[in-house]
Every structure is written in C-alpha cells, then in structure tokens.
C-alpha cells in the first residue's frame, strides 16, 4: 500500500488518480498506523512552506515521517512543496525550519529575464546531458516560485530557466521532484511507475 500524506496542502486527488492509473493500491491518510504500514510514502503539496510545516506539525506527522523515512529508510517521494519541505530551511513567506532531511535551503526564484512563477513544461536533464534531445519523455510540468538549493552532494536533475535550476533530487531512499509527475502526461506516469515498481 502506498500512503499519500494528507496534511491539508492542495491537490492530493490528482496524485492518487495517477497512482491508481498505474494499478497500484493507494490511500490518502494522516493516520500514523497507516503510514507505518505503507510500503512507500508520498508527500505532495501546494502552498507556502511555512503553512506546510505548520500543518505537518499540527497533525503530529513530523515525528512519524522522521521515524519511517529517516530511521526505517522507507521509500519516500516528495512532489513540489513536498520536495521543498524536506530541506533544512524555507523562506516562504518568512524564514522557517523544514524537515531537514537534506542540507540546504529553499529560496525564491531570482530571475531577471524570465517570469516567476516558473510555469509550464520544461526539459529536465542530468549534469553532462544538457544537449540531450528535447522530447515528450523528458518534459515535465512545473508550477513554482521557490526552488531548492542543496548544500550536499546528491543526485540531481535540472532545468534551464536563465540558470540551472534543480528539478529533482535523490538521496538514498528519498526521491523528490519540483515538477508534478501526476500532471505530466505519459512522461510523468512512466516516471511514477518506474519509481514505484522499483521501490514499493
């Protein structure tokens, strides 16, 4: 069973729909026992960093996420705000502490040439593969005004948006995307399928 964490931050139904489309069992829950029993934890979310942390805290979920993801090394997928919350520190709208699973911060996109939010489909790539063909399989849907800045060596993918901006991060059992795989048509469904089948 895959558990999508319900903490009152946005569009959980879409993530559930996408995972169901892949034929996987999935629940939306904030129940500690269900989180404990899940084979994979998904933390989606839309909204501000501060509100996100507050909601996790109010529901007593921080401890239970730390227990499962950090101590028990359960596979974890963060999406959008769910990616940002695993960093040490956020700045939206004011400086506040995150889950701290990855060293680094979340900052507003500071861009002179392109609009903020970064909204739409963009090509993601690994370092050294910048010139890879731009096609349907590597374009994902983004909508965000803040981006993560890790301060440790972890596996990342990037998008070009005036500068190289982080699109996804991976460290041990933790994988997180700034883009929305559940909204990224076949590219997104295929990414979810690969991740779920190799981890849950």
């Amino acid at each position: 069973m895959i558990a999508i964490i319900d903490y009152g931050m946005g569009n959980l139904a879409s993530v559930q729909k996408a995972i169901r489309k892949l034929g996987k069992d999935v629940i939306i829950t904030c129940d500690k026992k269900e989180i404990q029993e899940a084979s994979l934890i998904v933390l989606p979310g839309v909204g501000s960093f501060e509100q996100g942390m507050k909601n996790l805290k109010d529901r007593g979920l921080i401890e239970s996420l730390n227990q499962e993801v950090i101590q028990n090394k359960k596979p974890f997928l963060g999406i959008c705000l769910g990616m940002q919350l695993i960093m040490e520190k956020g700045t939206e709208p004011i400086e506040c502490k995150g889950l701290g699973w990855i060293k680094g911060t979340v900052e507003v996109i500071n861009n002179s040439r392109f609009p903020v939010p970064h909204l739409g489909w963009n090509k993601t790539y690994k370092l050294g593969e910048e010139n890879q063909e731009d096609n349907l399989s590597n374009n994902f849907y983004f909508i965000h005004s803040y981006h993560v800045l890790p301060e440790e060596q972890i596996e990342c993918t990037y998008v070009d948006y005036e500068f190289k901006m982080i699109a996804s991060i991976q460290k041990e059992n933790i994988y997180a995307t700034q883009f929305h795989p559940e909204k990224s048509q076949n590219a997104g469904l295929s990414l979810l399928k690969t991740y779920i089948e190799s981890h849950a």
Partner: protein
Amino acid sequence: MLKVRLIPIMTFNGISLVKTKQFANTRTVGNPIQVARVYNSRNVDELVFIDIKATEQGRKINLPLVKKVIDECFMPVTIGGGINTFEDINDLLGIGADKVLIKSMALQDPDFIVKAVDYFGSQCISVAVDVILDNGEYWIYQKSDNKLLMETFIDKMHQCNVGEFVVNAVYNDGMMNGFDKELYQKVIRITSKPIVALGGAGTPKHFTELLKTNYKGALAAASIYHFTQYTPQDVKIALKKEQIPVRI
C-alpha cells in the same frame, strides 16, 4: 527550455460542449467527457473547461460531470463557470482541478479575489478577461452596459496577485481570423503574470504570428480544434519549424 503552452478550451452550456461566435451563434460540438479523453490521448499541454451559462442561469457547475472530465486528464486542468464562494473553489480543487477561472466575482468583488489568493494560493486562481473593442480602446463589461477599461481591470487583478490571466478577444471569438496581436502587446505591458491568449485562432500560422511578437505566453483555442483538420500537434509542428519551443 520552457515551452510555449498550447491549450484547447472546452466551453459547456450545461448540456453539451458548444462553440460560440462572438459569444453568440452557439453550435453544439460534442460530449465533454469524450472530448477530454481525446485531448488527453493527444497529449495536450493543458486543458480549460468553462461552463459559460452557469452564472447567467444562476446555477452551480455540475460537479459530478466536471469530475468525470478531470478524471480523463493527466495534465493540468482549469475549470471556470459560476464560481461565487470559497466552497465552490474548494469543491473544484477537491475533485482535482488545478486552477479555477473566475470572471464575475473578479469584476464585482476584488476583495473576494484577494482572499481567495491568500487562502488557496496564487497559482490556482486564474482570472478571465473578456475583452471588447470600442472606439479603439479595450474594455471589459462589468455589468450589461457598464464598461471598465481593460487596463484598469488587469492592473487591479495584478495587485490582487492572481496566478494567471485568460485574455479572450470577444470580437475574435469563433472568427478564426487570427489573434489580436496589439491586444496582447498591450496586456504584457500591464502585467508580468502568466497570460493565456484566446480568440481568433484558425490556422497554425495565426499562432506563429502572435509568437513572433514580444508575446511569449500561452495560446488557447477552440474552433480550430473543433472545425478544422488541425490538431494541437499540427500547431506544434508549425511552431517548431519556426524555432519556437514546444513540447513535442
């Protein structure tokens, strides 16, 4: 590189999908669920669904039907029509809408928009700007005969920090005679927010013509996809030939 978004629009009258000309001369164009399924299979970038009669007929949007439309889609979906309360927005987001498109409430009560942006987040609040052309000026109808300068309205909504503007040239609606390039030049001078241009697309060339100007926003259309042989993919192929970045 960020791609230009191409967005089919589905307009619904409470019974079936329809297409208007200059907001009149309604033609029936099919079943919304089937049409959504086709657009999803064609891998479109985004979809907008509007119940154009909900406000006029004083009814709420049909949630079970809209849910079936959204369930067909694995791309972002915007829903509009008859949105008057936080509960309406909450209901639509709850069934999987990514954004809601608001018109009447934005004109009547900007404070509602401020509060909605605060509560739901800027990214999911889109505002519909239905533009008319009169004496060389762009206007919006606030009530049946009370006009407001488009610039004033967009500027006010920009201050409310809405997530996106869907700017529809009503005089071009269904005419398939090309986008109003001047209109969008004007809009990008008023706001730096994401824009969706709508009204007038009839051939792939119309899309490239607009994107060769300073306008780099999204392009929406309905008639071209309902009434011609061109699919969103055909338009993308034409854009790609002109070195315009598209997801293809």
